[in-house]
């Protein structure tokens, strides 16, 4: 009883139904066993489209708009595509790229979920760096002054070098204590370091070498 009962409706009629509808013998349409052709012949010629002034205005505007969008910063090209493009770029594309660079996308990130604002993270990182640089710059100036004072006091001597080395290490420690952000950054770096996850138990040692020693196998 397959094909009968409460099954879903099929698009075509059964032979029985066709007979009831009056299709007998030659009238019966042929059973389709293959998908219809991709480009079936057009039985009647379609009507030619008339172009009104409104339509021609719209066509021009649309073409212009699509070109503008393609050159706008909102037209996003994936990194892989961009790589391909840079290999075969002519002067025009480069000029467009330069224009794109100039016209930056304007997003109201306040009205969007915070996770979309990728620049906010960068900013925090960028804000941290100048602080460190400033501190280091200050340290260098202080240090030079200290050194000058020492030179003046002691008037030079072989033991001073060791003292300086000690002082150096002391001052570095102080820096670390003073600058918790930098310390945090260092920790983060360690976490991100892929080498941390790598562990070699030494079992594989010399395995490859052995094979190599045997020479090529033919």
């Amino acid at each position: 009883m397959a094909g009968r009962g409460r099954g879903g409706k099929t698009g075509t009629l059964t032979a029985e139904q066709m007979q009831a509808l009056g299709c007998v013998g030659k009238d019966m349409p042929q059973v389709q066993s293959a998908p219809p052709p991709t480009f079936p012949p057009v039985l009647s010629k379609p009507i030619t489209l008339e172009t009104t002034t409104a339509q021609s205005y719209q066509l021009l505007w649309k073409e212009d708009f699509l070109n503008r969008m393609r050159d706008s910063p909102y037209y996003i090209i994936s990194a892989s595509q961009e790589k391909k493009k840079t290999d075969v770029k002519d002067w025009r594309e480069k000029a467009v790229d330069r224009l794109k660079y100039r016209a930056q996308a304007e997003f109201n990130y306040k009205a969007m979920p915070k996770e979309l604002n990728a620049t906010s993270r960068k900013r925090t990182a960028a804000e941290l760096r100048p602080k460190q640089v400033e501190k280091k710059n200050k340290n260098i100036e202080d240090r030079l002054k200290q050194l000058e004072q020492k030179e003046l006091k002691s008037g030079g001597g072989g033991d001073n070098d060791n003292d300086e080395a000690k002082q150096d290490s002391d001052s570095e420690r102080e820096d670390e204590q003073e600058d918790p952000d930098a310390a945090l950054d260092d920790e983060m770096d360690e976490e991100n370091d892929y080498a941390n996850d790598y562990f070699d138990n030494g079992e594989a040692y010399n395995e490859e070498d052995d094979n190599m020693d045997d020479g090529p196998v033919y």
Partner: protein
Amino acid sequence: MSADYADLCSALLEQCFGKVVQAVADCLFSANTRTLSQIVSSTKLSRKEVTLALAVLIKFRLVNFEPSMINAYLPEYSLKREDIICLLRYSRYIHLVQSKYGSIGASIAEELLNSGSDTATSILVKCLTNGENKSETAENYRDIFHKMITDHYIIKTPELITNEDQDELIPKFLTTECDFFVPPIIDLQLLTKIQSGEASVENAQDSAMVWNLNYDRFHQEFRDDVMKLAVERKLGENAAECFRFILKIMYNTTDPWQRVSFLTYIFVHKRLMIVALQRASNQVTFGEIKQAIEKKSKNLDLMKHLDQYIALITDDSLGFLRKVGDMGGGQYVVDMERAFESLAFACVESVITERFGSKAARIFRVIRFKKFIEQEDLQKEAMIPAKEAKSLAYNLFQEQFIHVRVIKKAGGGGSGPAKAFYLFQIKTKDTVRMLLDVCYKALYNIIRRSNYEKSEHKGLIEKSQRLDSIVETMKERGESEDYIAEIVETFTPPECEILNKVKHRIKTLSKAELTLDDTIFLLQMYQHHCTMLPTGIQKFK
């Protein structure tokens, strides 16, 4: 939403925003909501690319976000599927604004479309610096901006609720309908300062108010145009003008996008019945129409024979206007449901005529008129030879324009074939939906073909563009015409011929796009007014 519509949306987004946005939108199309990490994992794009694509889609109002049901701090994104097709209609919006407000209005609308959504000050600054008509004053721009707001063509987006205490992960918005069309205060002095670089846009008073185009106000205008054109073609210009006034009066008391949604349950003969209460607009009286025409129209012929024109529209088979009472010289209602049913089926009939011929259209009309009809009766009623009628009916059935209803005779059973009646019928909603899908598919094919033509002849098109720009600069420099002609001749005649052919083909395809969109719009209006299917159309969008 059909697969054809999904393909079309994907192609439209690729045209406007590139492949990354297309991939993100495709991912969102296939699900109700998705989180950022889900999109990243399914699209296999980098997180940075996905966030950028989502930001673009939110800016252009094509994606919504809401806190997740499970985790209130996790946003979930959803695609506004119905709005993607609006990308196709941008040129129509601009044309409408151009005809209503001139080039100033067009440049304001253009800037709004280019940037998705923006503050009034920022838009006006862009118009004043980039616009074609730089001679216009900032005051003119401001006035037209205000006028477009009061006419509801520009709408304010819900305002952001700012909390100083905490930095929220998902912003919240305050939606107050009264605020949507309140014109902002635009400081003209600040505009000139921003132009000269003395101040920035962020200093403006209205920096928290973001504006964008109210698409459905444009759709309302397009819908009215469709109806007016139909009346004009059938009953003449005066009747069309009369109908225009009737629509205008109707909008004073009726929601323009009112649907058959006021359902009520009543018991009739102990059976629960669902009745749609409000099927048409609120009433418009003859007196109101007369007053409005006397005030605003100079058409003396219309004024003289107003009652006859109204009677003409009311008696017409299109059924746009219905008389419901005699109070105040006659009470009338605009029946959108009936109007779009007749318009949509006129469209379906014309499609059948073009595809299968006028005899098939006659068969379709007979079935529609009779509602249910047997094969034998059909050929008699349509007055078409039996064999031809059978083949045409089968073709229509195969292409799903008509359907078959089987009514089994009770008590058949036993041996032999089951006795049953096979009646042809038209499932109106299914037929329209099928035709709409065909339109989506055709539109997608057009875009694909157009892209193919462009990529196939990319070198030739770019060469001609380069040549044009060189010739232009040479003309500006005042080079001799012989030299210019020599340069132009570098584009050989066979190349020229191929380019002209390609350009003609692309233009024909673009024209077909516009014409198809007209059909899609009409069928969508049918779906909005005659079915309960979600269409995404609302008064404020």
